[in-house]
């Protein structure tokens, strides 16, 4: 088995607030192969975005802090790197697309300038891959790549002159301009309307074909996942509760939470009138319930769930689940 591109082990990111410690990410492990699209799904506030930010080490600090864990990217632990090294990795090897294109672009700089920035910095100044005068051309190329109509004029315009979809495209252009090997997309489509969604997703898909970038797609929208991903990781209250490739997971979810999640999605062609909802609330991340964090909402909750925190167990090849239902219990 080849060395995975990204390997996250026991990642823990806490936020130290006056109200208490928020364990946003409380022990997350997963792997990504080169060129694959991994979907990270879960309810809002389950720690998806924080995981992503932790990988890039962009967690707002204070109050946030990565307390322990490993983020091994291309064989090196990012958490051990110096800030400078880390900075050089951002935008070149790993880059990230954010949820809301409206607020994520700097309103006082032209689109062109913002796209040019990383190119000029990384490729010209740091890596000497191109000369300064090539930068405009490259920018133009990127704009074309993300299919922005008449780039010659758009390049000198400001974000507020762009529509939501356009902004998101520009954002993508900006982020892939140094063709990173890992692209983290944090809810890239939630803020734009459905028609645009499709376009954005297409865009990302064939970018992946063209550039062979692997994508960590963070979303709560299983529809999107279904369209895009090769593999899925389901997150709940700061932990990954289940991992499998798309098909298996959709066909037979093991973890009660996953099934609940799937059940909550309207399926085309089913007669079922009312949707199933997941009972109860997302647990507080400051004082999570003891044992399995899902047990208060779990239909199959057993005593052990209330006492012991379940370990991840591999019930099948590349098929991981964190639940007491599947024997093993916890390691002694």
């Amino acid at each position, binding site marked *: 088995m080849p060395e995975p591109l990204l390997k996250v082990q026991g990642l823990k990111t806490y936020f130290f607030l006056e109200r208490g410690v928020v364990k946003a990410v409380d022990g997350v492990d997963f792997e990504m192969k080169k060129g694959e699209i991994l979907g990270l799904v879960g309810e809002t506030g389950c720690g998806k975005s924080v995981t992503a930010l932790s990988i890039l080490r962009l967690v707002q600090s204070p109050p946030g802090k990565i307390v322990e864990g490993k983020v091994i990217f291309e064989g090196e632990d990012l958490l051990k790197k110096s800030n400078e090294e880390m900075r050089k990795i951002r935008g070149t090897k790993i880059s990230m697309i954010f949820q809301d294109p409206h607020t994520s672009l700097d309103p006082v*700089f*032209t689109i*062109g*300038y913002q796209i*040019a920035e990383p190119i000029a910095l990384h490729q010209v100044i740091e890596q000497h891959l191109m000369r300064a005068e090539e930068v*405009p051309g490259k920018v133009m190329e990127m704009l074309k790549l993300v299919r922005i109509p008449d780039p010659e004029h758009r*390049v*000198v315009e400001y974000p507020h002159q762009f529509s939501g979809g356009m902004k998101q495209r520009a954002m993508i252009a900006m982020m892939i301009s140094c063709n990173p090997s890992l692209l983290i997309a944090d809810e890239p489509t939630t803020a734009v309307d459905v028609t645009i969604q499709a376009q954005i997703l297409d865009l990302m898909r064939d970018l992946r074909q063209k550039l062979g970038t692997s994508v960590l797609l963070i979303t709560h929208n299983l529809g999107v996942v279904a369209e895009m991903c090769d593999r899925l990781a389901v997150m709940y209250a700061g932990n990954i509760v289940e991992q499998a490739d798309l098909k298996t997971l959709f066909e037979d979810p093991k973890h009660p939470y996953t099934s609940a999640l799937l059940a909550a999605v309207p399926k085309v062609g089913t007669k079922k009138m009312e949707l199933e909802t997941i009972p109860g609330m997302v647990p507080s991340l400051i004082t999570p319930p003891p044992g399995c964090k899902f047990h208060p909402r779990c239909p199959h909750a057993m005593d052990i769930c209330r006492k012991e925190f379940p370990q991840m167990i591999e019930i099948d090849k590349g098929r991981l689940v964190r639940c007491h239902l599947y024997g093993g219990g916890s390691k002694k």
Partner: protein
Amino acid sequence: MDQRGITPLITVAIIVVVAIAVGYVLISRGGGPSENENAMVLRMIQSADANSLDVDRTKMDQAMQVIALSQDTLMTFDLNMNYIPLLAESWEIGENGAYIDFHLRHDVKFQCGEPFDANAVVYSIRRAGAPWSAQSDTVRNILDAEVLDEYTARIHLRQWDRWLYDWFAQTSSSIVCPVCGEDPAYGVSKFCGTGPFKVKEWVRDTRTTLVRNDDYKWGPEIYQNRGPAHLSGITIEIDANNLTAEEKFFRGDIDLMIGISPRPALIERLTTDPNVVHTFIYPRSSMAWIGFNVSTLSPEIQQGLKSDRPIPSGHRVSPVNDNSPWLQVDGKMTPDNANRGLLVRRALLYATNREELLLLAWENLGKIAYGPLTSLMWGYDPSVEDMYPYDLEMAKNLLAQAGYPGGSPTNFVLHLTLLTTNYEPYVKEGETLKQQWKQVGVDLEVSVRAFDDIESIIAKCEHDLVVGGYTWPNADMLWWYWHTIRVPPSPNRYWWGNAYTDEVIDNTFSYSDTVAFKAIQECQRLIMEDACYLPIVERPFLMPMRVDVKGLSVHPMSNFIWKHLDTYIEK
């Protein structure tokens, strides 16, 4: 592509910095005193400026000292206050004072180059008599002026007036150039006179710059040097903030401090600093007092029927001030009223501790004043000195008789307002009196006002009491207390009510000195008996100068007629 980071900030900064640089270059032309070394400039400093340098538009001391330097009078005083010639070589008085003839010097030129002749005199006299002029009251007894020949001017008098005669020696009678006297546009004096220094620039409340008049050679005989002056110029700087003013003086940036208010620490410093000569002047002619608003003119005077004494021009007819009817004293009023006012005023005089006033307000400089005239004036009457000793019991009794019984620090029976300028000793006088009069139950409110406000309030006769001071050469001051057609700020709205006093007053005009002398003494007594005002102190002048200032002796009239002809600075 838009490469601006925070360039707006930088551009703005650069622009403004440039602007400042340019502005600085444009603006900073040195206006400072004495640029070139060989120039010998006397640098004075004082805390307040004149309100005008036009002799007919101001009464302020600050103005007079500049006018004395830039303009001349027909006669002037010697050190014993005798009349000596200045612009007039000689003069004679017509039979029983119907007119005065002035025979003028032939060699005098105005600073603008115009010759000085009888026309100039006539022009100035008429100007002084103009309805808008500050002098109009003073010269009320001048009928007209007339040119006899080029160098002889005749002043026709309505009647003999020894004080008017005296006026011709006072700075306020200075002769201005008829040609450039008026600024055609704005009708203010261009300050062009015949004096030893000409006003180069007057920046109000900032600095007056005078430069030597090199043609000057007609200085009065009291100076060894008849002119031109040794000094190449004089600057009078205004600095209301004595923190900086004194610092300049003690560092030697200033040669002479005028009109400063005494302060123990300051006096200490002045007396100990070896580089400073400091003199207290007691001009025989300067005192500080507090004036009561006594009354309005009696109906007769308002109709001009009282006596054959002429009604002066510009005579105001002021309303009775209803806010303080008790203050009105008038021969024609009911004796009851008259009495009350009189009693109260006497009470206040008894309730005043002058020693303390002298200490707190004047730091024990100067000497206590007892009557309307200073002890060195011609006609001074020593008998006034023991008329009102400090006696609280007496004061209380008088107040009780006046209908204000039982006054005490806790029980105020009377509320009065005292107007004063912000001249330090005056304010202190007021605040000290406030404390003293408390003892007899009189509540005094001290209201610090601008000079102009006070003038206007008095003009409307709306004051109770006012702090004032004068510098005046002679017993003419008495006129002030008789009625207020004399130099404001005036203490009184007052007219003598009976034949006897009329006669006494007329006698003070008398052609015969002996008669006049007696009358003057009698008047002082009458005035103090009527307690129509409260003398406080024969006002001291602090005039500290640097040791290198030489040849500056002190004239009894202080610096108000001083021309600095002998003054020079030792390099």
